[in-house]
């Protein structure tokens, strides 16, 4: 080694040292990624991503629950009174303000993921102070458009991506 008491300019050895370290870190990252990403949803899970639901048998004031991606989806045929109640609710009364029109493509059909946005329990239908949904786990209350009104849940019930294939069939996902 040369005289170490003087401050040395970075040399070939420093470059090699840093380059080796950087490549080592990159290598560890590349090696670790498959070990982490294997935990994400696999192809067979993703393949079940969309379902078609026949709603012809659901009368006014009735609901059905269908299983989509392992979660319940509520399909509710709302009554005129329910729609009116929701439309007339002022936005400033809402925790997570959203127009009724933004919640339902066709006002009489409300399609929502039936999972409480608090900690994932399934709310009970036609229950609670707002005649919508009530989660028994921690008392979150949703209105007739599935919007959060009271309790610890932070958000409205999620609206999944869905399209009307015909008047009586909905494709969810």
């Amino acid at each position, binding site marked *: 080694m040369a005289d170490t008491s003087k401050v040395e300019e970075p040399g070939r050895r420093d470059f090699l040292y840093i380059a080796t370290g950087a490549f080592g870190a990159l290598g560890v990252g590349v090696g670790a990624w498959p070990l982490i990403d294997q935990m994400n949803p696999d192809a067979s899970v993703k393949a079940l991503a969309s379902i078609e639901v026949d709603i012809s048998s659901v009368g006014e004031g009735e609901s059905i629950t269908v299983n989509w991606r392992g979660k319940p989806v509520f399909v509710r045929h709302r009554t005129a009174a329910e729609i009116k109640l929701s439309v007339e609710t002022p936005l400033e009364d809402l925790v997570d303000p959203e127009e009724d029109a933004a919640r339902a493509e066709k006002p009489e059909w409300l399609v929502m993921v039936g999972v409480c946005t608090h900690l994932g329990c399934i709310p009970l239908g036609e229950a609670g102070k707002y005649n919508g949904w009530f989660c028994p*786990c921690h008392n979150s209350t949703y209105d007739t458009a599935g919007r959060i009104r009271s309790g610890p849940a932070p958000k409205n019930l999620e609206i999944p991506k869905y399209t009307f294939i015909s008047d009586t069939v909905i494709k969810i996902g």
Partner: protein
Amino acid sequence: MSGHSTYVPKSNAGKWLEERLPIISLMHGAAVSMPNPRNLNYWWVFGGIAMFMLIVQIVTGIVLAMHYTPHADMAFSSVEHIMRDVNWGWLLRYTHANGASMFFVAVYIHILRGMYYGSYKAPREVLWLLGMLIYLLMMATGFMGYVLPWGQMSFWGATVITNFFEVVPFIGDDIRTLLWGGFAVDNPTLNRFFSLHYLLPFVILGVVILHIWALHVPGSNNPLGIEPKTKQDTMRFHPYFTMKDLYAIVLFAIVLFYFVFFNPNFMGHPDNYIRANSLVTPPHIVPEWYYLPFYAIVRAIPDKALGVAGMFGAILIMFVVPWLDTSKVRSAKFRPAYRIFFWVFLFNGLLLGYLGQVSTTDDFLGIHGVTNLLISRIGTIYYFGFFVVILPVLGLIEKTKPLPNSISEAVLGVEGAKAEAEEMAANESKA
């Protein structure tokens, strides 16, 4: 583990091994010749009991895994298969399920003993940190184990707990999906929980070894909270403490097996004998009893993110206790004010445990107008207040009682200690 060993190999084989791997002298130093304070009371047996329970859990767990099927369609029936068909399967499963609870009982007493006698104070901070890490790992292991039978409580408990992670800013949703391996708790979740539930106990065992190592460097604390000064203040680990610990383990095992044989589902929940159903939430979700105080805290805080932060914070704050407590005196025996706050803390923990399993909107113990929610909030405030206000402030203002000169003096009196010291010196010179 730190030079206490008096082991000298006598046989040629012993000498041969000692030169190559001094494992026998290491074990000898840790469990035979290790000097322990002579005044340890029965609250000091719970470390050994916890170690025993860990071994019980590992042994019963390994054999249960030989009969269990970690698949969403088969897990529930495979547990019933263990209960009905497998030779002694009922015994193994009930011992494992109740053993988990009794492991937590031992560990909670062990932690509270450390808090009462100030065992976390210098030079035992690392010992405390490793203990807390064990506790955290136990919580994760216990939770994942509870999911495996794939009953309604398994499924919905898993759903609630994994949803906690959604509050992490920006990546919460991705973390949750990563934990689930799907869009909800399902077969991939069960599979990975089984894998991790098998792995973590061995991680715990590794940290337990570090915990014991960190114990044997400064040695055990004791009820007086003063360090042993002379040989007179200590006794050999074996036979005195090995026998005492074994006796306590036998007593503790009687309690464990009372539950196993006579009341095996006392600490379980009947809903877990209903197969998991992703479309029906049970009307009342409660976690295992050992998480209830923390569950009460999450429910006491009205905001979702803050509630989850409060719950994790309640556990993580325990890690910094050695630095929050400013008192120079370790043992509550000499801290009259701390002693009161400690017992209130203990009672408050039990109260939060009770509140964690009742409806928040109901009246507290039937008292009209006082909801469980209100009491939970008061309990939560005291829980955090104990750590961030009482511990730091009390250490500065409390008038403590005078400490004894030595352990022997406190045990035998000044005259008695002197007489014993002379006797010991005489015996030594004779030898």
